[in-house]
C-alpha cells in the first residue's frame, strides 16, 4: 500500500514496455478556434489499464479520436510501437460512449460483432464464427445472436459494442466513456465485465485506455490515471493506482486508499475548492508533468 499521491515517476514503477506514446499533442479545429488540447504528453505501457479523466468538455474525446488515428492532430504525434499513427491502426479497436449511434441497427447482434472481421480474408468462416461466439460469451450475450440491437436494453447494447471490439482482437482497446449512457447498476455490471474480459485475454490484448469523467470508475478500473486540466487540456497529474486485485465493487470502493485517491483527484481537478470556498487550500491545482 504505497500509493503515491504526489506526481509520480511512473517510469520507475512499471517495467513493461511502452506501447503508445503521446507526445506534445495539440489540436485546434480551425485557425480561429481555441486550442482544445495543448501539448499533451504521456505513455501507455503494454498490458496497462490507463484511465484518462478530466472535466467535461476538456477535450477527452478529441484526444481519443487523435490517438485512434481518425482525427489528425494540429501538432505533436501519437506513436504505436514507435511508429507514428496517421490512420486507424489494425492493432486498435474503439468502443464509443453512445452505443445507439455506433452499433449498426440493421444488422443482428451476431453480424454486428462479425462486422470488423468481414474483410479479413485470412480467417475462415468457421474461425470467424468461433471468434464471434467467444466475444459474445465474454460479455455474457450468448443466445442473443439473432436479435437486432434495437430490441436490447442499453447495457446489453453496450456489451454488443464491447464484443464487437473484442472480436477484432485488438492489442489496445480504446474506450470513450463506455458506461456514461447506462444506469448506475448496469454500469457496475459492465465495469466488472470489462475487468473479467481483461483477465481472460492474452497479454497483448490487455492494454486498455479509457476516457471518462467519472472519478470512481477510473479508480476502480485503472492501473494508472492521467488527470487532465480544464480546456485547453494538459496533463495535470499522473497517478498509479495500487489497489489490490481482483477488484470488487464493495471492498475496493470502501478501501481507505480508494477514498484517499478519490479525495486527491477531486483536489487536483479543483472540485473541492469550490465547496470549501475561500477557506480551501489553493495549492492543489498542480501540473504534475
Amino acid at each position, binding site marked *: 500500500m504505497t500509493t503515491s499521491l504526489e506526481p509520480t515517476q511512473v517510469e520507475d514503477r512499471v517495467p513493461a514496455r511502452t506501447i503508445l506514446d503521446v507526445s506534445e499533442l495539440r489540436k485546434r479545429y480551425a485557425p480561429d478556434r481555441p486550442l482544445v488540447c495543448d501539448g499533451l504528453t504521456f505513455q501507455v505501457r503494454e498490458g496497462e489499464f490507463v484511465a484518462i479523466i478530466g472535466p467535461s468538455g476538456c477535450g477527452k474525446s478529441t484526444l481519443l479520436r487523435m490517438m485512434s488515428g481518425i482525427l489528425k492532430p494540429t501538432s505533436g504525434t501519437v506513436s504505436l510501437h514507435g511508429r507514428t499513427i496517421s490512420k486507424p491502426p489494425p492493432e486498435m479497436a474503439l468502443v464509443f460512449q*453512445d452505443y445507439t449511434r455506433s452499433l449498426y441497427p440493421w444488422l443482428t447482434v451476431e453480424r454486428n460483432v462479425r462486422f470488423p472481421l468481414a474483410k479479413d480474408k485470412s480467417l475462415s468462416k468457421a474461425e470467424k464464427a468461433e471468434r464471434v461466439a467467444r466475444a459474445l460469451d465474454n460479455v455474457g450475450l450468448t443466445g442473443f445472436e439473432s436479435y437486432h440491437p434495437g430490441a436490447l436494453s442499453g447495457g446489453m447494447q453496450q456489451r454488443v459494442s464491447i464484443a464487437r471490439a473484442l472480436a477484432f482482437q485488438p492489442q489496445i482497446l480504446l474506450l470513450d466513456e463506455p458506461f456514461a449512457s447506462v444506469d448506475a447498476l448496469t454500469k457496475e455490471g459492465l465495469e466488472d465485465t470489462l475487468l473479467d474480459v481483461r483477465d481472460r485475454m492474452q497479454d497483448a490484448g490487455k492494454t486498455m485506455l479509457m476516457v471518462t469523467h467519472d472519478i470512481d470508475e477510473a479508480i476502480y478500473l485503472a492501473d494508472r490515471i492521467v488527470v487532465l486540466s480544464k480546456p485547453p487540456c494538459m496533463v495535470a497529474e499522473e497517478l498509479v493506482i495500487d489497489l489490490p486485485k481482483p477488484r470488487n465493487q464493495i471492498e475496493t470502493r470502501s478501501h481507505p486508499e480508494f477514498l484517499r485517491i478519490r479525495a486527491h483527484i477531486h483536489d487536483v481537478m479543483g472540485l473541492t475548492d469550490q465547496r470549501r470556498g475561500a477557506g480551501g487550500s489553493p495549492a492543489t491545482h498542480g501540473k504534475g508533468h
Partner: protein
Amino acid sequence: MMRSALTTRVLPWVAPLLLLVVWEYAGRHTTSIYLPPASDVAKALREDWMWEHTTRDLLPSLKRFALGYLAGSALGILVGLAIGSSRRVAQYTGPTLEFLRALPAVAVMPVAILLFGLGDGMRISIIAFGVLFPVLVNTAAGARSCRQERIDVAEMFGLSRLQVIRRVILPSAVPMISAGLRVGLPIALIMMVVSELVGGKNGIGFYLTQAQSLFDIAGMFSALVILGVLGNLINWLYVRVETQQLHWGAHL
C-alpha cells in the same frame, strides 16, 4: 364490441357505396352522355379488361412502369449516395441538379421525344426522370445524416472509403431511400399514363385517349378505375414490404 366492429369495419365503406349509388342513379336519369351509370362502367370493366385489354394495354404499361421506375431509382440511389457521402461531389453537382430538379418531368417530354422518338425509350426515360429526383434527394439526405460514430467505427476496423459507403452509409440511408422510393411510385404512375397519351400503340394512357375519341365514356371511366386500383395495390404492396424490412429504422 358490436359497436367497435361496426365502426372499424363498416363505416369506411359507407361513403364509397353511397357514391356508387348516387352515381348509378344520376347516370340513369341524366340526358348527358358524359355520365354513364356505374353499372355501364362495370360492364366495360368486365368486357374490356377481362382480359383482352389487360394483356394488350395493362401489361405493356406495367413493363414500362417497372423499367422506368427501376432505372430512375437505381440512378437516383447511385448519384444520391455519391452526393451524400462526398462534400466535393455535392459542391460540383449541386446547382446543376437543383436546376434539373425544378423542371417538371412532363415538360421534359418533348425533349425526350426528340431524343428517343415516339417509342418505349422515350416513355421509360420520362418515367425514370420523374422518379430520379425524389429518390436522389432522399438518398443524399439519408447518406448525409449517417452518424459520424458509425463511420468512425468502420474506419477503425480498417474499411476502405468504398466499403464504408457500401456497408455503413448506404444501409443507414435505407429508411430515407425507401421514403423517396415511395414518393416515386405515384410519380412513375403519372408519367406512365402521360407518356402514353402521345403517339402510342398500346398502354392504359393509349386506351384512355382511344376511348375518349370514340366517345366510349364508360370505357374511359373503366381505365380510371383500373389506374386507381393499380396505384393503391402498388402502394399497399410497397408499405407491406417496407414495414417488414425496416423494423430497425426507429433505432437509427
